[in-house]
């Protein structure tokens, strides 16, 4: 077993990869980032301003793979003999293969569901008997955040989350086309239908034409603001759960859990008997190539080799705003404004944790509810009110907004965004009197990088709100623009 393996891997799948010239054990099917973590390697790339970065918090992970620069290590699987090297953010491949690209495919369906978590699955199961559906999921698995959990979840009985997901998706019928490892570039209104261009793992562009669209796009982890929060060895909640429960790899031998919702993490760490300490008030992490210690605001020093941000999640507001939706601030987060049938506008529905933070089972119910609305629109018998009643049993959870300790933090070292935007940069602009997030974006580059603000825009709003006293609900949040997820230019360059 490798230093951080939690489970024995299948020996027949064993391969060798070379990182910076040294041989390491890996297993077929593993992502590069996970294989390297299992071998105790955290530092994979260097930001434009020279900050060392790992794979499990914000920012991109470009690497040199077999001599090719700028390969996304998060999405690339290991192969035997693979040569891996670090690179900086700005390195790119100057000579490229030129081909005509793959011809664009088209698919016509009744409903396009973006997001394959419990909500998306719920919608599919509700409508599949009468309508054709395309289910688009960015990850390589269905089940979304539920799939990452190791412990049984409320509402689904005593079954393991993976069992629940397998059972539900096992019921999909021939009306359902499932696209895993697939990103959606946006939702475009064509009058007669909605165009949802998607890109599958093999760089295939498919134009889905759908009469209705469901945004079951989920929520994203909150980024906790402390010094060196971008350092290799810092994990977002969902990345931690993924390495543990999907890949059977530990984040480290001894870890610290920070943030307002440690209980979401500690139970999972207990399950794997990983030693941890809960530190509610982190100030700074330090280390040479990776996290070696955490220091809290009282000056206590904890020797750890990873830090987990357990700060809860907030709806991913990018897909709804790109599709033309408006936002409102409720329960500690921005959420799309919905009509009485869960629509941001005619034809576009939202369900699951994209609407509000609540248990997985409630998200599943909400997916079914939206499915029922759609069925009724198409003239089939459906009983949305039954689902609506059951959904009422689940109050949306409030998420605590971090109170930033501007006085004691070295703002220079706190990263608000993965693209070299420090809290200092944003705070300086806000304190100069500029409080419009549009201008802050332009002056600091906040929300203008790879994540389109998914992980930083909220904290940018928090800075404005806390520095000026303006309530969060009064701030004007910039809308997302296509593509919703980064796409290589060659994919959209193909001509029909």
């Amino acid at each position: 077993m490798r230093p951080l393996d939690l489970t024995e891997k299948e020996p027949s799948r064993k391969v060798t990869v070379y990182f910076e010239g040294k041989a390491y054990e890996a297993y077929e099917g593993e992502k590069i980032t996970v294989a390297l973590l299992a071998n105790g390697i955290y530092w994979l790339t260097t930001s434009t301003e020279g900050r060392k970065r790992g794979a499990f918090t914000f920012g991109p992970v470009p690497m040199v793979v077999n001599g090719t620069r700028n390969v996304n290590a998060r999405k690339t699987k290991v192969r035997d003999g693979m040569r891996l090297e670090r690179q900086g953010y700005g390195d790119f491949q100057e000579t490229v293969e030129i081909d005509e690209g793959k011809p664009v495919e088209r698919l016509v369906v009744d409903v396009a569901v973006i997001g394959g978590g419990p909500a998306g699955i719920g919608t599919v199961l509700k409508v599949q008997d009468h309508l054709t559906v395309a289910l688009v999921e960015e990850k390589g698995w269905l089940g979304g955040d539920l799939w990452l959990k190791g412990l049984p979840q409320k509402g689904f009985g005593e079954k393991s989350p993976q069992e629940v997901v397998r059972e539900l998706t096992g019921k999909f019928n021939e009306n359902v086309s499932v696209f895993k490892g697939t990103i959606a570039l946006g939702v475009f209104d064509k009058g007669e239908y909605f165009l949802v261009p998607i890109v599958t793992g093999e760089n295939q562009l498919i134009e889905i034409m759908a009469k209705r669209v469901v945004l079951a796009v989920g929520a994203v982890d909150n980024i906790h603001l402390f010094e060196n929060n971008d350092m290799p060895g810092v994990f977002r909640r969902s990345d931690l759960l993924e390495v543990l429960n999907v890949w059977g790899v530990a984040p480290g031998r001894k870890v610290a859990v920070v943030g307002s919702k440690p209980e979401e993490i500690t139970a999972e760490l207990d399950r794997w008997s990983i030693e941890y300490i809960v530190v509610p008030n982190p100030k700074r992490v330090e280390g040479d190539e990776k996290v070696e210690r955490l220091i809290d605001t009282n000056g206590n020093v904890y020797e750890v080799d990873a830090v987990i941000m357990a700060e809860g999640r907030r709806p991913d507001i990018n897909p709804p705003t790109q599709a033309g939706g408006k936002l409102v601030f409720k329960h500690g987060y921005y959420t799309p404004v919905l009509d009485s049938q869960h629509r941001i506008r005619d034809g576009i529905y939202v369900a699951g944790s994209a609407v509000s933070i609540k248990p997985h089972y409630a998200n599943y119910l909400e997916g079914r509810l939206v499915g029922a609305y759609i069925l009724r629109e198409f003239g089939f018998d459906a009983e949305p009110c039954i689902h609506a009643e059951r959904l009422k049993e689940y109050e949306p959870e409030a998420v605590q907004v971090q109170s930033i300790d501007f006085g004691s933090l070295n703002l220079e070292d706190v990263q608000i965004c993965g693209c070299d935007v420090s809290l200092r940069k944003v705070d300086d602009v806000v304190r100069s009197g500029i409080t419009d997030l549009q201008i802050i974006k332009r002056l600091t580059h906040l929300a203008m990088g790879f994540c389109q603000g998914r992980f930083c825009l909220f904290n940018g709003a928090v800075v404005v709100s806390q520095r000026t006293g303006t309530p969060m609900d009064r701030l004007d949040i910039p809308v997302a623009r296509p593509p919703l997820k980064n796409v290589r230019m060659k994919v959209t360059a193909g001509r029909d």
Partner: protein
Amino acid sequence: MPSKELPERSEIVIIGGGIIGVTIAHELAKRGEEVTVIEKRFIGSGSTFRCGTGIRQQFNDESNVQVMKRSVELWKKYSEEYGFSFEQTGYLFLLYDDDEVEEFKRNIAIQNRFGVPTRLITPEEAKDIVPLLDISEVIAASWNPTDGKADPFHSTAKFALNAERFGAKLVEYTEVKDFLIENGEIKGLKTNRGVIRTGTVINATNAWAKLINAMAGIKTKIPIEPYKHQAVITQPIKKGSINPMVISFKYGHAYLTQTAHGGVVGGVGYELGPTYDLSPTYEFLREVSYYFTKIIPALRELLILRTWAGYYAKTPDSNAAIGKIEELSDYYIAAGFSGHGFMMAPAVAEMVADLVTKGRTDLPAAWYDPYRFERGELRTTAIQMG
């Protein structure tokens, strides 16, 4: 630049706080005039906010070449004085057939006549300037090393700051609702934050110029329509990878360059409208990817981070309307820049300030005569791109 109280009166009021309005205010204030800019959102928030960075002197008529020659002198002067970045990294027009080469030879002759040092260069010379170029189909290029680029928002902010230093007032989040007119004379403007008394108004609202003209009751036909143009930005790459603005008429009227931050930015000719809608379209994403990767194949493997849209305020000959409107005293217009207003701003500011303070200017203002549309005297269509 926090928003200020609306003054009770001001000698001159400029409607519109984009690069044009702000540079005019800067020029007037510097000359000692009392001037106020009224902007409905924040300074630089309209098309300036969405603009592509390019500054070029490679036009195809005498007037635009002269104006841009002056403008580049001013870009140089003010970027040094006020400390914003203006890089003279050149403009490179890629040419693919004999007709294009002939046309550019004519343009280059006009440019050279006014001291703009454009040259026709070989494909290999072009590749020396931008090593990433695919020159397999290029037969020549038009190259002027004194063209350049600047960040539209940063430069507007610096002009604004210095306009204020010279005494101009910049009022943000204030929208003009109507004109107060008595006997053909402007008495003031009604805004959502009260009335401002003034005798002289300059309409610098570009895409919204029509609306302001209507409020002023102008009968003269000045056709300015908003068109949706879009832009793209890629992931940041090593600085200095694409220094000049690279232009290809053959490939979709594409323009592209690298920003100071490192991303490759640009657009294509793809135009929608007239419309005030600004939602980016999927068709643009396809077009821009196809054309850009033809010009620079290495872009194939770069990630597209974002697209956005902005207005070209277009006139029928792609030249702005700049001048005094005689039917109302004293009303001026500087609008309809048709996609190349940012680069012209410092010279236009000088031109308008001359007209307002002296009634005449040494710059060739007649070319932009607002009455030319009504007279049916359209100009040679200006090169619109980048």
